[in-house]
Structure formats: structure tokens, C-alpha cells
């Protein structure tokens, strides 16, 4: 690690990611986390060819039928196969959050580093705006946009990417503040490098660790936000299978037909716990203080 910091531009991003993944997998919690994530990603990719039934196929005779040899996970309130819908139910959520997370971390990270380096009036003003945004609950901001522009992927990805990048600004700025006064940054300034060059060559490699941990955390929070929106009826629109929506639908029948709700609950929980275990192991492996925050 220490040699890494002395020559910040040496290892490429891909090599770094590989090394970091190996370090995460070396810890028991990290290994479990990575295993759960990989499993979910594989299922999400392969499920259209795996599922035994059509996810839209409703049946009047099979309403809330308990699990048996033909429907392993039972059927839901419309007689749809729960196994099919559970296997497919994470695709939308994983797709949206996997696209939105890197965008959020990238733009939030860039703005944060830039402000940390530039300082001055621009920094002070923009940080006030960031504070103001963070004072508003996430769900209010998201719902205002969703109610106006609809709930498709085309709305959810940019909305999540924009709003979840704002807290990243703070993290990246704080991480950059630890670096801007170091000798190598001052040397680069003295050599006459521009701000963008200093960010790319001197600061970015040194805040990458913090940004990776932040990215892992953002992913899990985004997934939480996405499924909460679905649960509230503002996310994926039926009949597309989605865990949040399935849990919301199954809630009323839970005492008489727990299978319709418990399988999507298990699927969603295992993915989110997996991401958090991996994020925890990542933070420990990189020596980054995991940000302890209230769930805002």
C-alpha cells in the first residue's frame, strides 16, 4: 500500500480492481458477500432461460396455491408462479442500480475532488447547496421527479444517479482535503500542471480507495431506495416482476400464503446483505473508515 501511495499513477484501474477483489475475498465476510453478489448477478443474467413458467401467466384455479412439485415456491394472488417471479424479480433493480451507481460516484467524486482542490468561494457556495439538498429527505426529491416524469428505467436511472451523487461530493471533498496539502501535489503545482491534470494524476489515485468503498455503500443504498419505491408503488410498474412490488402485493395474504412474500424477501435481503458484507470487507481491506451515517 505504501509504495502505491508513493507512486500514485503506477497501477492501472483494472489491476487495482483485481487486487482489491482478491483482498476482499480473503476475508470470510468478504467471501460470503462476493459469493452472494455473484450468485445474484448470474441468476439475473440467466433467469430468462431458467424460469419454468411465463411470469405474466395468471390462473384462476391456482390462486395462492402452496408450494408443490409443479410450482416449487407456490403461486401468488393471481395464480402466477412465485419461483419464476422471484428469479426474474431482481433484474430491473440490479440493472438500474448497477448503471446508476458508477455514474453517481463518478460525477459526485469529480465535483468533490475539484471543490476540495479549488476551495475558495465556489467551494463554500456549492457546499451550502449540497447541505440544503441533504436536508431534504431522499424520497421527497425522488417522488417529485417520478410523479412528473413517470417511472420507467429512463427516469429512474438518471434520477438515482443525480441524487446519489450529491452525498458523494462530501466524501470525495473530504478525501481530497487529506491529499491537497501533500508535497507531491504542491510539486505538481510548482511544475505548472493545470487543475485537471493534478486531479487526474495526483489526487484521483489517492482518493480512489475512499470512492470505491463509497460506491459499494451507494449501491446498497440505491437498491434499498429502488425496492422501497417499488414497494410504495412508485417504481417498477406491474406486471413486471420486482421484489419490492411482489412483497407489497403479498403483504395482505401473508398469514394465509407466506410463500408469496417470503421468497422475494429472502432474495432481496440476501443481495443487500451480500453487498454490505462485501463493502465492509472492502473498507477493512483498504483501511478506509467506513462512513457511519444515519439512514437519510
Amino acid at each position, binding site marked *: 500500500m505504501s509504495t502505491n501511495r508513493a507512486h500514485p499513477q503506477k497501477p492501472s484501474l483494472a489491476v487495482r480492481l483485481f487486487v482489491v477483489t482478491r483482498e476482499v475475498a480473503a476475508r470470510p465476510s468478504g467471501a460470503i458477500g462476493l459469493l452472494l453478489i455473484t450468485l445474484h448477478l448470474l441468476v439475473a443474467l440467466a433467469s430468462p432461460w431458467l424460469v419454468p413458467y411465463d411470469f405474466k401467466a395468471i390462473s384462476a384455479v391456482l390462486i395462492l396455491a402452496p408450494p408443490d412439485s409443479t410450482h416449487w415456491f407456490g403461486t401468488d394472488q393471481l395464480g402466477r408462479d412465485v419461483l419464476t417471479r422471484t428469479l426474474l424479480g431482481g433484474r430491473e433493480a440490479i440493472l438500474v442500480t448497477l448503471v446508476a451507481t458508477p455514474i453517481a460516484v463518478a460525477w459526485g467524486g469529480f465535483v468533490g475532488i475539484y471543490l476540495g482542490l479549488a476551495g475558495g468561494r465556489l467551494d463554500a457556495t456549492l457546499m451550502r447547496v449540497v447541505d440544503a439538498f441533504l436536508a431534504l*429527505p431522499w424520497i421527497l426529491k425522488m417522488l417529485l421527479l417520478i410523479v412528473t416524469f413517470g417511472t420507467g428505467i429512463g427516469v429512474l436511472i438518471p434520477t438515482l444517479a443525480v441524487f446519489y451523487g450529491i452525498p458523494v461530493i462530501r466524501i470525495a471533498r473530504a478525501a481530497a482535503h487529506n491529499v491537497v496539502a501533500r508535497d507531491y501535489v504542491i510539486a505538481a503545482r510548482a511544475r505548472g500542471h493545470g487543475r485537471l491534470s493534478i486531479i487526474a494524476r495526483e489526487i484521483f489515485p489517492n482518493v480512489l480507495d475512499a470512492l470505491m468503498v463509497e460506491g459499494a455503500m451507494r449501491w446498497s443504498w440505491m437498491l*434499498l431506495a429502488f425496492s422501497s419505491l417499488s414497494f410504495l408503488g412508485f417504481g417498477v410498474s406491474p406486471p413486471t416482476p420486482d421484489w419490492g412490488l411482489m412483497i407489497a402485493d403479498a403483504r395482505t395474504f*401473508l398469514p394465509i400464503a407466506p410463500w408469496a412474500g417470503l421468497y422475494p424477501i429472502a432474495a432481496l435481503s440476501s443481495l443487500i*446483505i451480500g453487498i454490505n458484507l462485501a463493502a*465492509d470487507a472492502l473498507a477493512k481491506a483498504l483501511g478506509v473508515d467506513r462512513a457511519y451515517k*444515519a439512514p437519510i
Partner: protein
Amino acid sequence: MLGVITVALVSLIIFSAVEVLPGDACTALLQQDAQGQRLINCRAQLGLERPAYVRYASWAWGAIQGDLGMSAHGHARISDLVADRVKNSLLLGVSALALGLPLAFVMGILAALRRDRILDLVLSSLAISAMTIPEFVSATILILVFSGWLGWLPGIILASADTPAVDFFPGIILPVVVLAMVMTAHILRTVRSSVIEVLDSDYVRMATLKGVPYRRLVLRHVLPNALLPAINVVALTVAWLLGGVVVVETVFNYPGLGRLMISAISDRDLALVQAIALIVAGVYVVVNLTADLLTLVANPRLRTTMVKRS
């Protein structure tokens, strides 16, 4: 002072956001009748034809005096509409705090003192699951177990917004438990890591070497220094609890600020949305400010550094 600026900025952001979104109070009020002379009359009546900055000024001036305007749908004063909801959210939040705060501190300190032993591992993994599993999932499971299977507690609340606080019992127990679980997990983790940090510090090692008894070491040397950083996390949690916990309130049908927010947004009652946003942001700012002041009072060293920085 910074807090005032933040609230002012929030009001500007939320006002311009609502301004940019298509539709206004009159299209929401008249719905399909919103065309021609009716729309013009309505806009004239509500003063919507004035330029945006004039409307912002009059709205902000009203808000300062406690007048949040009229709701578009209920034809009611927003301050009356919101008052009951704020009271209910307060009841829910304070109950969750009363249950969760002591638990969080006791378990966090215990986990830190027994670091890496069984108790710590159990508490830490419980905390991770409690803070990562979505609230609607834990709420659904609790309802299934305690209401569906055991039949001990009601699963949803049927009381309306203006019922007195006592009548929410026993329906309020499950939502309080769900919220307390989430906040306990967050605060527990902060307390644990902060206590561990102090335990590893030079002055604690020094005290141990001097032969200070363990009890005295923990109570006098470790805890006062370790619990201070927890104030800020507690503040964020309090702000989250009082700002309307939308998901939990929806699951349990609890008539708090969060559910009012959802219905205001779905109904496009923009005046109400603005008012709620302002209240929630105000709470956030006040709570965080209080935490900063408390930290300053409790830690004299920070006072000088703060002065130096500013």
C-alpha cells in the same frame, strides 16, 4: 447562521423545483376542467399570474410568520393539516428514540469492550442485518409473526390523524420496534468503533500501565471521550425519525408526516409539498445545529479550533 442559510436555500430549491414541474395549483385543483376562462379566473384568484419571485417572497414571508398557505385539495389551512401529523410523527419518533437510544449505547459499549469475542460478533452481525434489511421487509416479517401468527398485536393502525396519542396504543408498538431496530443498529456501530478507538489511544494505555482499575478506566477515561463523537450520528438519526419515516408509516398505515407527504405528492398538492419540505428541512437543520452546539459545550478543545478555523 449557517442553519438559516441552509433553510433559505432549501426553500429556494423546493420552490424552483415545484415551479419547473409542469402544472400548478390550479390545474391540480380543477383537474379536467382546467382550461379557458376557469383556469384564468382561478389563477387570478390565487395570484398565480404574478411573477415567480413575487410569489416566492410572499410565500416565504408567510412561512416565517407560520402561515404555510392553503392546501389545493382539502381547501384547508396547511398549518392545521400539518399540525396533527407533526404531533403523530413526533410521538412515533420519540418513542423509537426512548426505546433505541439506551439499547444502542449499552450494546455498543459492550460490543467494544468485548471486541472480537462472541458477544461482539453476535451484536455486530445483528446490527448489520438490522441496518441493511429494508424497513418494509422487517416490518412485513414482524407483522406476519406478531399479528398474523401469534395474534398479539395489531398489524395496522386504523386511527385517524386527530386521535389523541393514547389511542395509538397498542398499534404503535410494532412501528416503534421497526424504527428502533434501524436506529439502534446505526448508533451501536458508531458507539462501538468510537469506544474501540479510545481504548487503543495512548492515554488509555498510559492509564492501564499506571494501574487504574478497569471499572474506573472505562467509566472515567474511556466513555466520556468515546461518546462525544456519537452525538452527530444521534442527531442525523433524530432528524431522520422526525422528518417523517415514509415507508414505515405507509406499511403500518400510521397517520404521520411521511404519509401526508406521499399523498401530497401523488395528488400534486404542491403547496402542501413545499410546506412539508420546509418543515422537514427545518427539523434537520435545528437538530444538527443542536448537536454541534452540544459537542462544543462538552468538548472545550473544539472551541478554540472552531474559532481558529472561522
